[in-house]
C-alpha cells in the first residue's frame, strides 16, 4: 500500500505515482475500449491506448490506412466516448484559409453599410467588424467551444502543402489572429484527429507533432463483430461467413480492394435478399458482388467459377 512514507497527513494529497494514478478526468485505456464498444466501434487492440495518450499529451492523432478501413469512424466514435460534438473539416486541393478558418459575411456587411448611410462613420466600422458578421468555419469553431469538441481533419493529404504548414501552427498554438478583431485564444483544446490516405507524402514536421496509428483491414473475427454491430437481424454464422469471404476476396489481386463500408453494404444486401447461408445461394452471392467490386477489371476477374470456388472455401 504505502509506497512512499505516508507521513502524518491525509493520504489523498500524496503525489500521483505508479499505476492507475492518472488525473481523474482522464479515461484509462480500458474505460475507453468499453466506451468505444458502446459507440458501435469495434476497435483493434491498442487504439484505446492511443486515445488515452491523445488526452494525456495533448497531441493530435494521425490515422493512416487504405481507403475504407474506418478511419473517419474512429473520430465519430471518439466524439461519442467524450460525449462531445464532432466538427469536421474535409480537405481538398485548393482548400484555403477562408474556407477552413473564418470569413467575413460580405453581403451582410454591405447591406449594413447601406442601411446606415448618413450616420456617423466610426460606429459603423466597429459594428461591421463584429462577431455578428463573422462566419465561423470548422477550425475557428473548434477552438471556440466551451467543451472540447472532436476536430476531424479528413484526408489531410489532399490539401496543399501550404495549408499543412498553416495547420501545424494552429495545432501547436491553438490561437488564431483575426486582424480586425484581434487574437482569439482557444477556450478549450479540441481532440484533433487527422486522417490520410497516402496520396501525398505528409511533411515530417506534421508527422512528428502527431501520435501515429496505422489502421489496417480488420481480421475475420473483428470484421464479423463489426457486421453484427451494424446490421440488424443477421445471424452470427452468416456474419462470420461474410467476413471470411471478404478476407479471401481481399487476397485476390484486385485493382480496388473492398473496405469495411463495402462489406457492410454487401451484408445488408444479402440480408435483404433473405440469404441465410452463402453456400445455399451462390446466385445471389455472385449477383451482389457488385457491392464489393468496383472496377471493370475486378468484375471481369470474378467469374461465376471463382465465386463458387471461394464460397466452397468459406462455407
Amino acid at each position, binding site marked *: 500500500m504505502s509506497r512512499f512514507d505516508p507521513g502524518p497527513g491525509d493520504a489523498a494529497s500524496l503525489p500521483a505515482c505508479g499505476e492507475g494514478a492518472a488525473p481523474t478526468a482522464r479515461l484509462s485505456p480500458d474505460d475507453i475500449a468499453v466506451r468505444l464498444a458502446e459507440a458501435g466501434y469495434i476497435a483493434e487492440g491498442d487504439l484505446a*491506448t492511443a486515445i488515452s495518450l491523445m488526452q494525456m499529451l495533448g497531441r493530435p492523432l494521425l490515422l493512416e490506412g487504405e481507403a475504407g478501413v474506418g478511419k473517419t469512424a474512429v473520430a465519430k466514435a471518439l466524439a461519442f466516448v467524450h460525449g462531445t460534438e464532432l466538427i469536421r473539416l474535409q480537405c481538398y486541393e485548393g482548400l484555403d484559409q477562408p474556407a477552413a478558418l473564418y470569413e467575413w459575411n460580405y453581403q451582410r456587411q454591405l447591406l449594413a*453599410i447601406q442601411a446606415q448611410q448618413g450616420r456617423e462613420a466610426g460606429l459603423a466600422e466597429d459594428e461591421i467588424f463584429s462577431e455578428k458578421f463573422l462566419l465561423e468555419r470548422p477550425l475557428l469553431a473548434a477552438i471556440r467551444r466551451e467543451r472540447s469538441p472532436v476536430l476531424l481533419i479528413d484526408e489531410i493529404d489532399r490539401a496543399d502543402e501550404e495549408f499543412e504548414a498553416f495547420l501545424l501552427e494552429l495545432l501547436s498554438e491553438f490561437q488564431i489572429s483575426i486582424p480586425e478583431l484581434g487574437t482569439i485564444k482557444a477556450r478549450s483544446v479540441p481532440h484533433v484527429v487527422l486522417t490520410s490516405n497516402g496520396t501525398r507524402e505528409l511533411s*515530417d514536421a506534421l508527422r512528428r507533432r502527431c501520435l501515429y496509428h496505422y489502421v489496417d483491414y480488420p481480421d475475420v473475427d473483428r470484421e464479423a463483430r463489426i457486421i453484427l454491430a451494424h446490421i440488424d437481424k443477421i445471424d452470427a454464422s452468416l456474419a462470420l461467413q461474410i467476413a471470411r469471404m471478404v478476407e479471401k476476396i481481399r487476397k485476390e489481386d484486385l485493382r480496388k480492394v473492398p473496405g469495411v463500408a463495402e462489406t457492410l453494404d454487401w451484408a445488408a444486401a444479402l440480408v435483404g435478399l433473405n440469404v441465410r447461408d452463402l453456400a445455399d445461394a451462390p446466385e445471389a452471392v455472385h449477383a451482389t458482388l457488385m457491392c464489393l467490386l468496383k472496377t471493370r477489371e475486378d468484375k471481369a476477374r470474378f467469374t461465376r467459377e471463382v465465386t463458387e470456388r471461394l464460397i466452397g472455401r468459406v462455407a
Partner: protein
Amino acid sequence: MSCCGAPMTPGEADEVSQLMAAKLSAFLKTLRDNSFAIGLQEAGDAAALMAAGYAEKPSLLRAALKHLVSARKADWLAFDGIFDAFWLGTRVRSRSLVSGGNASASGNPALKSLPDNAARSADAATDQLPSAENGENDAAGEGRMEGASVVENIAATDFRKLHQPEDIEKAHVLAARLAAVMRTRLTRRDQMRSKGERLDLRRTIHGNISHGGAPVALFHRRRKEKPLRLVMLLDASGSMSLYTGVFLRFIHGVLDAFHEAEAFLFHTRLAHVSDAMKERDAARALDRLSMMAQGVGGGTKIGECLAIFNRWHAARVIHSRTCVMIVSDGYETGDAEQLGREMAALRRRCRRIFWLNPMAGWDGYAPEARGIRAALPYVDLHAPANTLQSLAALEPYLAKL
C-alpha cells in the same frame, strides 16, 4: 515497475528514476539509429507517459510508445521488433526497403564501383557493336586542348566509351550539374506561361467595402500551377551496366535540385531509392543504395517491376502533372505481354511517359527487342540517352509540359 515493491526512501526512488531515464534515452537512441525522427519533445512525452503509469505492463508501454514515436507506416511496422529486441532481448531483423521477390543475391558489387567495373568489362559487354568507331573516337580525343573543350568532348561521347576514371568523374559532375540547370529553367518557364485569370468575386466585394460596395479595385484568381514532378525508373540490369553509373549521378542531381522527384531502381526487383539518394554526398548516397539494391547487374523483369510500381507506389508518387521517365534498353527477360499491360495502366495515370534508351543513339539501332516493342505504343517520347548532350536535349521537351 520496480517502484511498486517494498517501501523506498526518496533517495532510492530518485536512483530508480535515473536508471529508467538512462534506459529510456538509450532506447530512443536505438530508435533514432533506425531512422525514427525523435526530438526533445517526444523524449519528454515518453518520460511523462512512463511516469503516468504506462510502464506497468510491457504491452501497454509498447503500444503507447509506438503511437508516440512512429511517424509513418514503415516506422509502425518496424517498431515492435525494435521494442522487443531492446526491452525483452529478442533478436530483430534489419530493415530493408526492397520490395518484391526474395533477397538472395549477396555477393553483388556496390553500385559505386559499377562505372569502374563497367569500364573494365566494356569489351565483354559490347561485343555486338561495330568496333571500328571505337578507335576513331579515341583518336579524335587526342591532341585536343585541355579545359572546357575536353568537357564538351565528354558531353558528346557515348558513356560506354569513357574509359579513364577521370573522364568518368567529369561525366558524373556534368550529369549532376545538368540536372540543376534543368530545374531552374523549367521553373522559370512555368511562371511565365501561367495565364488565364478569373475574377474572384468574394475578394472583390470584400476589398471594395471601403468604396461602399462599388467594385473599383478588381481581384483576380489564377490557377495554381503544380510543379512538374519527375518520377524516374532506372534499369540497373547487366545489359545497362555501362550506363547505370552516369544515370545514377543524374538522378541524384535531379532529386537534389527538383522540388518534387522520386526515383526507383529496378532489375528483377523494384526498389524505392529516393530516401537513400537524398544523401547530399553523392558517393555516400550510392553506398547506401548498394545495400538496398542488391542484385544489380542481373536480368531485367520490367513488366513485373512495373506491376509492383503500379500497385504499391503509383497512387502516392503520381499526380496530375507527373512525368514518368524510364531509363532502360528494353531487354525484357520476363513476360513482354505483361510489360505491355502495365505500360497501358501506367499511361492512364500520368501526364507523359518518356523512355530513354541508351541504345537508341547507336547507328543502325531499331527497336526490335520484345520488351521495347511491347512498350513503345504507350510511350510519348522514345529518346536516345547515350551522351550527356542527348540528356540535355530533353529539357526543352520537359519545359513544354
